[in-house]
């Protein structure tokens, strides 16, 4: 873009400027999803919904629910209501939900009642609401394989500019893959060091976001993961 390599910037340009120094708007799905309402009923009606900056959160829920789809819920709605009333409950036993995208938190089902769909509630419990997508991890799916997938995803998406993300995601994937398919045991100290390096050393949120679900998994599913790790 603009003749530069497709890599993240170290920081946003100062003074702030758009593409080719022109005013630039980047719309995400949620912005666009609000447009039909505003076009039909006008801006005043939209403003009247509430005073909060984020009035709604759109939740995407996956095929492990009875009624998968895209739903709109008021901020502050209990997570249990989204799962059981909007989604119709789980179709099969689920042990965890990955909420907020690939770099969101991994929420064990035991935490459902403690959460409401808003940023504060998720942050307080050590998760991330993100864009509120809910991807379920069934009881019978090995969590180690899921973590391996997360590292592989990050390695695939990495631009390659900073060392922690370019190398750390690949090395993390390799370690977990070896542990799952062979006799190799991942050194827990090394994994913690890798996660810390990714978290505070990465240039952008891709490498910086990966440690959250991995840490959640190591915290809430220690029993399941302990055979693959050594202290």
């Amino acid at each position, binding site marked *: 873009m603009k003749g530069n390599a497709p890599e993240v910037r170290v920081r946003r340009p100062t003074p702030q400027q758009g593409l080719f120094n022109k005013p630039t708007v980047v719309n995400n799905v949620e912005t666009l999803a609000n447009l039909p309402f505003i076009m039909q009923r006008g801006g005043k009606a939209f403003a009247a919904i509430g005073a909060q900056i984020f009035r709604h959160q759109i939740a995407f829920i996956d095929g492990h629910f009875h009624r998968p789809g895209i739903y709109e819920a008021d901020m502050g709605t209990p997570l249990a209501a989204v799962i059981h009333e909007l989604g119709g409950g789980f179709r099969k036993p689920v042990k965890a939900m990955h909420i907020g995208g690939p770099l969101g938190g991994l929420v064990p089902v035991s935490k459902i009642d403690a959460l409401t769909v808003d940023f504060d509630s998720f942050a307080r419990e050590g998760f991330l609401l993100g864009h509120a997508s809910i991807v379920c991890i069934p009881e019978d799916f090995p969590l180690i394989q899921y973590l391996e997938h997360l590292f592989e995803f990050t390695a695939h998406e990495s631009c390659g500019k900073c060392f922690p993300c370019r190398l750390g995601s690949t090395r993390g994937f390799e370690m977990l893959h070896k542990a799952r398919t062979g006799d190799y045991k991942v050194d827990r100290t090394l994994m913690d060091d890798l996660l810390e390096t990714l978290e*505070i050393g990465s240039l952008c949120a891709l490498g910086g976001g990966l440690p959250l679900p991995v840490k959640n998994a190591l915290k809430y599913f220690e029993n399941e993961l302990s055979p693959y790790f050594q202290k």
Partner: protein
Amino acid sequence: MSTNPNISDKASPILPGEILAYINDKPYAVLPGETILKFVRRHLGDQSNAHTLRRAQPRTLRFLPGMQRGRGIGANGPAKTQASCHTPVIPNSFVYTDSARIKKLRKNIIELVLTDHPLDCLTCEVNNNCELQTVAARVGIRDVRYPEGKKPLRPGKDLSHPYMTSDFSKCINCFRCVRACDEVQGQLVLSMAGRGFDSHIVKGFEQSFSSPKCQLRRLRPGLPDVGYFRTF
């Protein structure tokens, strides 16, 4: 000699009205637009922040070459550490050059870099004259804990040019040669190709030094020397 007992002998005296920031909890005067690295070096000397990497005479510090992530100086406040070489000093900020956290981060990043580098120092032609080796020793790496993993496919030695050779099997993607080619020489012969783990340095369109009419030989003082790129 400083008039302020909190300031080391190397620091300039703080004058009334000067902007201050703190290095390891001691106040020092900040020059406008100064990077953290320059700020710390100006007050504590060149060897003060655990690195000896030479810079490729950049005209601008807008871009962050990857290697310099290993230079991070802990900055108090944001959760992330700031790379010192390109981050301007924020007035009244607290900079910690050798906290346990930043030392560990430096070590862990360099360890990751070494997973992508052939560990054949003893037989390497630049043994004992290698910045990467020096930095690794300085941050205290004794061995690489990661298991043997995939290595990027990079072309080996290029001996096609009369003045320059390269061995990209030892390249660590620090981007400094790319910057030197762009910012000092203005040639853009060297650039990056590929993405993520597969990103690598290319000459022209994946050619050799002899093909793109390379003028980099004039750059001898600025070129990095970590075993993969040598000038004569």
